[in-house]
């Protein structure tokens, strides 16, 4: 068995699987830094996935991306209105938003695609190889033959870092997350900042859902996000609320997801349900491990 081939294949799959997680986690990072924990992210991702599927069938993958982002934006908007506008309890509201999204997407998907679903009829994004870099052995095909959305997800890492830590709006955002009282005293419109952060996070969540459909799985199925939105929240914790950390954590989870294929390629027989459960177990481990010393890095206003 050509170990180089297996490794390259494994890395490529890991990166591909990590992409929606990275996008969603980056979005969640932004609104958590502002002090808002959005458990409706899962709902935003699912809505984005369905919207992207419908949009792509209607007018190609780029329209799918646009509609997907819009759907995520809307879902986050509902969450933001309830939690920031009216002051409702964040965590339960987020759970309710996700529940509502599951019901809504389940219904709309049936209407749009019928009971069998869209199957393979959705136009998707193919891989976009980068000319010179792809020639690098092992790493080349893994990293540089991915879809445009994957490259975009990587670009967002330094961009979000620059925004959060080197711009004034980013400072206002972080201030809203660390001490709303002090921020308000300094003139920061905390509620508006949080709302914008939540909308941005939701938009990225919608993009994540779109990438799941258009650049990874290739089709839509009910409840296809399967908790990725919640895993993204765990990724933010594991990444200690920093873009670089989030990137590494997302890759870790991508690797866990790709493990199934590696095992199959190596001929190892393991019940597939183990791989099904692995990301969630891994998330729990990560939360526990980080819990001891990492939580002190959490924005102080988070969850209040």
């Amino acid at each position, binding site marked *: 068995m050509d170990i180089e081939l297996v490794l390259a294949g494994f890395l490529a799959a890991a990166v591909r699987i990590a992409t929606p997680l990275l996008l969603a986690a980056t979005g969640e990072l932004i609104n958590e830094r502002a002090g808002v924990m959005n458990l409706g992210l899962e709902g935003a991702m699912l809505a984005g996935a369905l919207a992207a599927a419908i949009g792509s069938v209607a007018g190609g993958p780029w329209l799918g991306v646009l509609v997907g982002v819009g759907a995520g934006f809307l879902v986050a908007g509902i969450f933001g209105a309830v939690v920031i506008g009216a002051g409702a*309890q964040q965590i339960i509201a987020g759970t309710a938003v996700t529940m*509502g999204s599951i019901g809504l997407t389940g219904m709309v998907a049936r209407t749009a695609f019928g009971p069998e679903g869209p199957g393979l009829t959705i136009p998707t994004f193919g891989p976009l190889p980068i000319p010179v870099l792809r020639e690098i052995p092992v790493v080349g095909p893994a990293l540089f033959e991915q879809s445009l959305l994957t490259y975009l997800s990587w670009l967002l890492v330094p961009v979000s870092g620059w925004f959060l830590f080197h711009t004034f709006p980013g400072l206002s955002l972080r201030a809203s997350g660390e001490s709303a009282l002090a921020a308000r005293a300094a003139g920061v419109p905390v509620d508006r900042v949080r709302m914008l952060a939540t909308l941005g996070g939701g938009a990225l969540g919608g993009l994540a859902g779109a990438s799941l459909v258009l650049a990874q799985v290739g089709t839509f199925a009910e409840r296809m996000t399967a908790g990725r939105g919640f895993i993204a929240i765990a990724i933010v914790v594991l990444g200690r609320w920093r873009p670089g950390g989030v990137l590494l954590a997302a890759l870790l989870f991508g690797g866990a997801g790709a493990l199934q294929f590696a095992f199959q390629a190596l001929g190892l027989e393991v*019940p597939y349900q183990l791989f099904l459960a692995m990301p969630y177990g891994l998330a729990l481990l990560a939360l526990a491990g980080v*819990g001891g010393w990492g939580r002190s890095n959490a924005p102080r206003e988070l969850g209040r």
Partner: protein
Amino acid sequence: MKTLPVRATATAGLALLAGFAVLAIVLHLAGYDALLAIGALFRGAFGSTDAFVSATLVRAVPLIILGLGIALAFRAGALNIGAEGQLYAGAIAATWIGLQVGSWPAPLAVAAVWSGAAVAGAMWIVLPVLLRLRFGVLEVISTLLLNFAAEAAVSYAVTGPLRESSGTYPQSDPIAASARLPVLPGSRLHLGIAAAVVLAIVLWVLFSRTVWGFRLRAAGLGPRAAEISGRIPVKRVLGVALLWSGALAGLGGGVEVSGVTYSLFQNLSPGYGFAAIAVALLARLHPIGVVVSGVLFGALEAGAQGMQREAGVPAVAVAVAEAVVIIAVLLAEAAARRSPSRQPATPVAPG
């Protein structure tokens, strides 16, 4: 004797109305005949005695039991969002035990199945409890993630160790006759309804009349004050409340297996674990209220089937109504918190 909580009931009524209204709007926008759909929903739930007894009440049983567990946790200030997973853990245990107890007398067999289910549910929440108490990990996330792990466990069970003898479908063999619950003649309503009501009364007495119940409520309403008083070990109260919450959810799964499905298969629960959150919130965490709101949500679930049959609307759409109900109750709670002259009737949610 407490007077009927007028404000809480009015809030609940309005929340339900809002849920139906939004559902109707959404159905209409999606191109369905909203009036026909809502009508079908009511007919599915209340259209006949048989509908009410065999559809609505049967579905109310797990909703009440799980709702009680969630209300218990919420009262202590803990957010158990993993009832769905704990239900499945209980269902797995119940099925396994139910397959072993064929030679036992019926009451013993049922007792074994139910206790095993409760223990399994508690075991499924042990990890989140430890993570919370030891590492400060939000139990919301940990219980939520374990839901998915539980579904994977069920999938493994029905395709592996618990697979039916004929091996045709991913489901277990039916459990022994002695483990199955007696049924009201002429209907599908089983003994579980009695268990649900009894549990509600027990919890009501526990909350309102015992020291344990007082400690629980104090820990939930004001953890810092409780801690400072020196008399309430908040962490322990929280942990115990979560364990019992998990046990109740597991029991709910066991009751479903011994009373309705008689076997294990995937998607055994149409989202009871999440609907139960709505049940608990609508009841403002009051155990007797949970019985009433459990019946209401049982009606919603039963009606959803009718809606699917008659109007072609996917049953899952009812989750929209449930979500709106939760949000409406949260908004009412937020409004009550903001108005300084009013005390909220009961705590709706921790934090």
